């Protein structure tokens, strides 16, 4: 029954697409089903004593029957899933029928009625093969802790990786060629774009577009752009130059190097001066005791002092 329901469900969508293309094997399958249903409806009508029926009313009845069976299938599936199963059981169907207001008890008697007509089985048509989307690689078997009824793993490419099989270009010359032309193209496109969107200058008065030069624009602080390396270069430089971050400018106004009094500072200063500069290299690490007048804290004005 569930099969019927599923197929009926599929059938409705099948008819819709069937109008477009009748040669499709899937459509044929659905058409055959529907024909069987029509036969069923017709035989039931004959059983009920009808001699003939209009095609339209047969169609309507077929539709109704199909809907009914579909509903049974859908409901039954819901019930079975509700109890965490994937395959509906008989009880599911019974509950469904009860729910739909059908008296189940009458069913065996109806099935065994004498005047029932036997219909030939529908012609065997192949179940349409649902086209498998990209079967790449082997699906992984379930690991032991997962019960086998659980759905299979999806295709590995969807969650592991998709290996591509393009042969990499290894020829040096071609590589260089490619890199060069790629860079050139990018640069050209970029500069052209900039030239198109901004102001330009031209070497030729009659033709502004062939060799467009981005207009020269003065900077407010020209030396910064001229001297500072670009961010990319800066990064490279930092990798090579691992010198300590300079804190001196920050500490300029902070009282980190407070010397006890003036004379002490002077003394220290002179002692620094007396050292031979050739020895000064060894003092390199002792950053903390640098006494430089520019690093000393700024003094507060003395109130008493008059200028």
């Amino acid at each position, binding site marked *: 029954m569930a099969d019927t329901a599923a197929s009926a469900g599929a059938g409705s969508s099948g008819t819709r697409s069937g109008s477009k293309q009748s040669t499709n094997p899937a459509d044929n399958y659905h058409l055959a089903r529907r024909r069987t249903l029509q036969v069923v409806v017709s035989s039931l009508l004959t059983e009920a004593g009808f001699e003939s029926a209009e095609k339209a009313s047969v169609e309507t009845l077929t539709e109704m029957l199909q809907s009914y069976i579909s509903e049974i299938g859908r409901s039954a599936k819901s019930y079975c899933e509700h109890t965490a199963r994937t395959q509906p059981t008989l009880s599911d169907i019974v509950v469904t029928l009860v729910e739909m207001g059908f008296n189940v008890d009458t069913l065996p008697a109806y099935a065994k009625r004498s005047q029932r007509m036997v219909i030939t089985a529908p012609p065997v048509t192949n179940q349409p093969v649902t086209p498998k989307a990209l079967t790449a690689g082997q699906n992984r078997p379930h690991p032991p802790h997962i019960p086998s009824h659980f759905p299979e793993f999806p295709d590995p490419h969807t969650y592991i990786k998709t290996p591509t099989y393009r042969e990499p270009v290894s020829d*040096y*010359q071609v590589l*260089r060629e490619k890199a*060069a*032309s790629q860079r*050139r193209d990018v*640069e050209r496109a970029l*500069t052209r774009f*900039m*030239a198109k969107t901004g102001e330009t200058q031209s*070497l*030729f*008065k*009659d*033709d502004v577009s062939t*060799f*467009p*030069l*981005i207009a*020269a624009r*003065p*900077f*407010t*602080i*020209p*030396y910064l*752009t*001229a*001297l*500072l*390396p670009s961010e990319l*270069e800066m990064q490279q*430089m930092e990798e*090579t130059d691992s*010198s300590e971050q*300079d804190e*001196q*400018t920050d500490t*300029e106004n902070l009282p980190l190097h407070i010397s006890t009094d*003036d004379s002490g500072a002077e003394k220290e*200063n002179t002692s*620094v*001066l007396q050292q031979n*500069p050739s020895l*000064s*290299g060894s*003092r*390199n690490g002792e*950053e903390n005791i*640098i*006494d*430089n*007048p*520019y*690093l*000393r804290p*700024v*003094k*507060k*004005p003395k109130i008493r002092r008059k200028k």
Partner: protein
Amino acid sequence: MNRKKGDKGFESPRPYKTTHQVVCINNINFQRKSVVGFVELTIFPTVANLNRIKLNSKQCRIYRVRVNDLEAAFIYNDPTLEVCHNESKQRNLNYFSNAYAAAVSAVDPDAGNGELCIKVPSELWKHVDELKVLKIHINFSLDQPKGGLHFVVPSIEGSMAERGAHVFSCGYQNSTRFWFPCVDSYSELCTWKLEFTVDAAMVAVSNGDLVETVYTHDMRKKTFHYMLTIPTAASNISLAIGPFEILVDPYMHEVTHFCLPQLLPLLKHTTSYLHEVFEFYEEILTCRYPYSCFKTVFIDEAYVEVAAYASMSIFSTNLLHSAMIIDETPLTRRCLAQSLAQQFFGCFISRMSWSDEWVLKGISGYIYGLWMKKTFGVNEYRHWIKEELDKIVAYELKTGGVLLHPIFGGGKEKDNPASHLHFSIKHPHTLSWEYYTMFQCKAHLVMRLIENRISMEFMLQVFNKLLSLASTASSQKFQSHMWSQMLVSTSGFLKSISNVSGKDIQPLIKQWFFRDQSGVVKFYGSFAFNRKRNVLELEIKQDYTSPGTQKYVGPLKVTVQELDGSFNHTLQIEENSLKHDIPCHSKSRRCRNKKKKIPLMNGEEVDMDLSAMDADSPLLWIRIDPDMSVLRKVEFEQADFMWQYQLRYERDVVAQQESILALEKFPTPASRLALTDILDQEQCFYRVRMSACFCLAKIANSMVSTWTGPPAMKSLFTRMFCCKTCPNIVKTNNFLSFQSYFLQKTMPVAMALLRDVHNLCPKEVLTFILDLIKYNDNRKNKFSDNYYRAEMIDALANSVTPAVSVNNEVRTVDNLSPDVRLILEEITRFLNMEKLLPSYRHTITVSCLRAIRVLQKNGHVPSDPALFKSYAEYGHFVDIRIAALEAVVDYTKVDRSYEELQWLLNMIQTDPVPYVRHKILNMLTKNPPFTKNMESPLCNEALVDQLWKLMNSGTSHDWRLRCGAVDLYFTLFGLSRPSCLPLPELGLVLNLKEKKAVLNPTIIPEAVAGNQFSNSQDEEEIDMDTVHDSQAFISHHLNMLERPSTPVCSQYRTLLYHKHFYQEHKKKKKKHKHKHKHKHKHDSRERDKEPLTYHSPAGGRSLRSPSLSD
């Protein structure tokens, strides 16, 4: 009077002595660019009747002067503001130069003069008679200074500190008077107290020790207190204020570096080397750095790249660089070393007078040279010496001798010691900048000659003696009168040389200092080998008649490389002996047909292929004066194979370079091979290899019809720098080996100079260069490739040849040749990429602009200055501006555009950056739109007036600029009256205002032109009188305070005229003969013609009957 005894010969030209000076600047306004402050000088009179004190001050507005707290009257008069006052039609340069020299010496502190004259209050006269101390307190302000102090205020949002606004002192020679009143002389030493109150976010850097920094009461500003206890001349005082980042030198904590915001990483890298320079100097001078601290400040819009002041140096911020930059690193280090050398000699040790300047420049240049030798090696040093020698030789041969000691040996004050020049050399402020550079260059070369004579050891002992005397003196109190020991003088220096070394250097001094002989020696050498006597007959001729040359008498070293070794011979060059016989050591030369081991000068033995030699002579090569111990130019003739041997086997880089130069004249396959071998030799000095590239290109062009194989250097380059598998693709950049880096940069530039039979650059070469650009890949390189790429653009520009033009058609895109189209494509792309990813110092933009100008000049692209003018605007990086301005200057010349010339002249007057203004004048002088002998539509009266105004009054705030304007005027119009001016009507001008008649000197040239005697002498004489006038003029004005007057021609009277004129002829005869012979040959010839063309009816009568009607 007992004071003078202590001075040991130095007599101050001033009637007083300064002991201490306080400079206090309490307000600096960046918005209005103004400065308010006061100075206080403590002086001791040295004469009893001192009642007037003359100080230097320019631009400053002086509010109040007090002497010992008493109000004092003062007069401010600056004749240099406007050199020629009277609105005469006087327009000749001789007149101006003399008037200018007079004006400058009228305020020269070394002549006891000054712009500011303070009357000592009568109450103090008694005090003065007792020679007691005087304190002069002067309140002053500066508003929008045009020189001396330079404000840089970027126009963006934010506070001044956020904007990076800064100010610094600058100027050429003694220019401190531009920003505070002082005795602006290098010979007036005193101790200093300096105070600067600045915004709390700013730092004030000045000379001496920073004693303390104190907040003002409102806590918004702080005051920097500096003390300089070492006696220092006012001219060595400097200041820099800005929101500087501070870096204490990690090796020497007493050294502090300052730079503008955001540049700290660059500063760190740039200064990381400085301590080694310190160590070097202290070691060779065996003397500690004289000041207790040292500061370096890197600022924008610098006046000069390096300026050294007492205990601090101001550098251009453009010297800063990161670790990725190769080319700038040695240049910056050289600047650092130069400034440090000047700290010892120039700042700590000062000079007595202007004529002793050469000693300071010489010593600092010399020890800087020693540092170069130590740091960059002997090759680099010798190459540098050779370069400097070539420079001075070229300059002296062009313009005449450079005098190191302008008034050596006394002599008549009146004579202009350098009559061949258009400016006076008696004062630093009248010197042309180019002359001054050459002067420095010559000074250190002469110092090297002295070293050659007395040995380096003695030389260093002399320096040490000077320094230790000075440092003893510096620690003394003023009263001991020792301070003059800190001043160096020529005679003192020479004396201590003879004391220390015991050697007589008089001949040397005579040769290089005496006035009449200033100049270089020009040798012509040739030789013949006498086989019978086995003697080398060497002939050495001298040219000492051309301007700028002199005769050399004395020893001359000649080195002869023979088969058996290298031999030095010292020849005595005498008056008449031209031929010198030199015996050869190598006897037979039968056995050696092929290869042989030849011993070289340095003891090395090398295998030589001797098959190229002349079979009869054992001589491989000959060198005259190999050690460059004479300032000379040698033109020596020897066979091509000798030059080739010299290039291949001589180990001295100078010899190699000489032979490269000589081989240009021998385009043979053998020369080609020799050059290629040199290029290939890795151990050869890279600069030699670089010049070999250019020589090879020249040879290839001369041999174009017989040249076989691929274009010169191509296969070599391919082998060195291209991939093994694909020879058309250059390797990815790796500049770790600097030698190959420089070679890699240079070779394509030289290759682009190759031309085929049609005089076009071979297609193969162009494709090759374009491929280099295309495949350039710097991703894996540790260094930046911006200089390399810039050179590739230079190479493209070099490959451009004149366009084939049909009927002068207008240049359009459609008729571009395909090659030029490719070149233009590259230039466009590079220039545009620079906007997005700027390169260091915008080297690529600079090269692109130059290349575009080349394309314009060769007629591929329509000639148009608009692009360059936009790049020349203020706000672009200075290198770009200069390159653009150079193109505009060139355009002005080629297209004779009046509009562009006006634009340039306008920029000279209005541009905010002094260096750019100076540079425009300099470039216009080097590449003038027309010269004095040329007819040009540009040469008109308005231009003369404009330029005259520029040098007369428009540039009074900057000595260098004014001298630049004088140079330009000289190049355009010559010494005499510009030919485009109409003749004045009158012989005499009556100045009604001053109630005196003045001879109109402009007519004299025409009037006497028929005469054999030179006209210009007369003008000169007239001006000579004005010299005296101006000397007296300040005192003259003191007597007539109420009367405004002019500095020149003030006492000129008609009555004196005739007498004066004839005197003149007698006096000047000797001198102008000399003049005629040399420099002014053309002038006079031209002038002889002048009366015919420009003779005015007034001209004739002007001489005889000067009319008084006006």
